[in-house]
Every structure is written in C-alpha cells, then in structure tokens.
C-alpha cells in the first residue's frame, strides 16, 4: 500500500536529524533546569517546550514551522520577528516595578550605566570575530541581560541571528546565579563585601508619579531610538503609580504580560530549528554572550569601587553586579553573596536600584545602537 509508504515518509522518525535530537535534548534540559533550579522558569519552560516543538521534523510541503509562510506558528512568531512582544513585556514590567529604592538613592543608578560596558565591549568583540556591524550590535546587547531588549534589537538589526541571540540572552539570564558569584568574589575584598549600606529613605507618592514621565523625557530626548521600549516601560510604571489607573496596571502585569510571555517564549523556542540554529555563528554568539555577562558584572563591581573613592557613605561593590539587570535574579545573587560573608547584611533592597537602572541603561544602549547601525 503506497499510501502507507507515502505516510511513513512524512513521520518524524524518517527525517529526524542529529541536530533535531540535540535541540530536543536542549529543550528538555531547559525545562529540567527551570523545574529543579527555579532559574527563570517563566521563560525557560516556554522556550524549552518551544524548542521541542520546533525540532519535530515536518514534511517540507506543510506550513508548520515559524519560518513557513501562513503557518500558525509564523503568525504567533510575528510578534517576535517584528519586535512587537518586547515592548508589551516592558509595559507589564513597568506595571510591576517599584522604582522606590532607585529614587531613594540615585547615585546607585550609575552602576546600571557602568554595567552597559559589557554591551559595547561585546559589540567590539563581535566585530573582531567578523560579524557585520549590525549583527555585532545585536550580539552586544546580550550583555544588557534583558531578554526583551535583546529580541527587540535583534529583530531590527539582525533578524537572521534572532534565535541564537534570544536563546543566549535567556540562557545566561537563567545562569546568573552560576556566572556572577565567582567574578564578584574575584574583584572584591572581604572588607568590601562586608560593607553595610544605609537604609533607603521613604519616597513620596508624588515623586513616584513624576519619575516615569521625567525619566522617559530625559532618556529619549538623548536617545530617541529607545522611545518604544522606554515608552512602554514608563507607561506601565505610570499606570502603576498614578493611583487612578490601578485596574489597567493590574491587567498589564498579569493577564497581558503572561499571554505575551507564553507566546514569545514558545515561538522563540520553536525558531531554534537545528538546520538554522546549529551553526558556527550560534556557537560564537554563545561564547560572546558569556563574555558579555562576565564583563558587565565586572563593569558594575569595578565602577562601584571607583565611586567609593569619592564617597563617604561607601557602596558595597557587590551591589554593582546587579547593574546587569537580569531582574531580579542578579539582585538576589548580590544578597546571597553578601550574606555568605555576613548573614545580617541585607543588600537586596540596595541591589534593586542598579538592577532596574540596568534595564533602562540597556534600553538606551539598544536605542543608540539601533540609531547608528540601522540602514
């Protein structure tokens, strides 16, 4: 019966490649990592399942994958490929983020700027490795440690590398508790790690209301390329802080961000088809990504030590590591490393300031790179 033969040829077993099997194993590993270690589960589970789905070999004639015109997954992937999901996620993040600690200690914002050195050094590294300027910009932003920002810039500058950049960004964000502590310990003395910081002051409701509008104007008048990401981030924060739009803020930080997160994670995962993903470029991107996280962490820590040269109220330089963003995992890592030296030192609150500043900082860096590198 030729129908049977015809059909058997369409089964996954027939056209399965080693690449597909590897990617499926990676997908399963992501899910296990999320469940066992609780590393960024809201993204690793969707991405992992998406990678499994995207690597089931399908019949060439059928529109199934994110790359097939008219397929369901391509429609859902549209929000990734056009950079629509990242600003929506920023809207939700804005509606859940409390900028109080940053408002109460504005000098900590600079640590969030310093960590962006990882972005630009990685950009140079990518150029050296032979990537084009636009590709290098998109790769550099992995050092911003913000998944949505990385996806947004990759969609605009180097869509051909989007999958690898997104996976690298989220992988390292998940691995922040593994990557950061050795670097933090290497670059600080025990005395520095023991520094206790003054408790943050109380911030008024009025300051919190004015902040999103003012910060948006300052940042985007300087770097208009960040207008969409920061516009949504601070729009969400204004909804949260205005006190008259609470119901919108609630929806933005629950149903809205959840729906977008599921679709983004799943389709990004599904875009990692072995045939397009398992390339030499992807390996280079992963290597550069690891470097960029390390550099960003070092940048934040060292800049904190530099600031301490001028300050009387010393900053615990561990807090600088939170400037990479990867909210809130890197702030938790700061707390953890700090408590290993002194169990009564609570750095979490202080670390949240460079942490959220790092989100703004890498959105600005993305805006600059986009403005300079877009044709």
């Amino acid at each position, binding site marked *: 019966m030729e129908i049977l033969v015809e059909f058997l040829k369409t089964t996954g077993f027939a056209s399965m490649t080693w690449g597909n099997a590897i990617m499926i194993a990676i997908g399963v590993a992501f899910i296990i990592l999320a469940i066992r270690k609780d590393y960024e589960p809201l993204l690793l589970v969707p991405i992992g399942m998406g990678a499994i789905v995207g690597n089931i070999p399908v019949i060439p004639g059928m529109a199934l994958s994110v790359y097939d015109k008219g397929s369901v997954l391509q429609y859902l992937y549209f929000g990734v490929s056009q950079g629509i999901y990242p600003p929506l996620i920023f809207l939700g993040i804005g509606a859940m983020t409390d900028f109080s600690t940053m408002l109460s200690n*504005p000098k900590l914002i*600079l640590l969030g700027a310093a960590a962006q050195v990882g972005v630009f*050094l990685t950009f140079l590294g990518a150029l050296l490795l032979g990537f084009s300027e636009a590709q290098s910009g998109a790769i550099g932003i992995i050092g911003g440690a913000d998944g949505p920002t990385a996806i947004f810039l990759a969609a605009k500058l180097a869509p051909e590398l989007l999958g690898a950049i997104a996976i690298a960004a989220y992988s390292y964000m998940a691995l922040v508790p593994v990557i950061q502590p050795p670097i933090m310990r290497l670059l600080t003395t025990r005395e520095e790690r023991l520094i206790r910081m003054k408790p943050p002051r109380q911030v008024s409701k009025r300051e919190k209301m004015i902040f999103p509008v003012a910060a948006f104007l300052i940042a985007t008048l300087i770097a208009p390329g960040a207008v969409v990401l920061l516009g949504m981030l601070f729009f969400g924060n204004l909804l949260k802080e205005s006190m008259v739009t609470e119901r919108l803020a609630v929806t933005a930080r629950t149903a809205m961000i959840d729906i977008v997160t599921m679709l983004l994670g799943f389709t990004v995962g599904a875009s990692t088809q072995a045939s397009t993903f398992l390339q030499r470029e992807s390996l280079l991107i992963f290597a550069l990504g690891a470097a960029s996280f390390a550099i960003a962490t070092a940048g934040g820590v060292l800049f904190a030590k530099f600031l301490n040269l001028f300050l009387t109220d010393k900053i615990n330089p561990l807090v600088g590591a939170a400037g990479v963003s990867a909210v809130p995992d890197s702030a938790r890592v700061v707390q953890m490393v700090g408590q290993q030296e002194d169990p009564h030192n609570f750095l979490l609150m202080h670390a949240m300031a460079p942490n959220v500043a790092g989100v703004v*900082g890498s959105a600005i860096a993305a805006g*600059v*790179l986009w403005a300079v590198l877009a044709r």
Partner: protein
Amino acid sequence: MFTLLQIDADTMIRGLSISIVGIAIVFVALILISLFIAALPRLLSLVAGIFPEAEHARTSYARPDDSDDSEDIAAAIGFVLHTEFQRQLIENQLIQGRGH
C-alpha cells in the same frame, strides 16, 4: 567572513567610536536622570501642590479599629463563606469550560 581578527582597521575604528559614543550616551542619560531624581524633592517643595499627595479619597479609606466584636466576626465569616462559594462556582465553571 568569520575569519578571526582579519577585519580592516576602518571598521574597528568606526566600531570603537560607536562604542565610546554609546557608553557615553548611556552615562549622560543615566547621570541626568540621577541628578533629576536627586533634585526632585527640592523641586517638589518649590512647586508643591501640582501633584496630589495621598489626598485621594479612593485610597485613603481607614482601617476600622474596632474589628473585634462579634458582629464583625459574623460579617467576616459570611464574606469568607461567600468567597468560598464563589470560588467553587468558578471551579465548576472551569470544569465546564473544558468543553471548548
């Protein structure tokens, strides 16, 4: 392409320029935000009164102090039970909702 370190000097110079300008822009923007935040409390005392401070009726409801008498207990329990019934109702609907 992808032949390590064989790119021309022009590209690297341009790359370096972009990097330096880029990190400078990031610092300028965040320093300005930082300065603005630092100045904000003083600015606010100057222009006090443009934005409201905890004057909103909708958020300023008081926690009742006398929450200990039996009438309140009954009310509370009634509400709890009502909530529980609501929850069950929703769960039932979820089960039904399966039939999509």
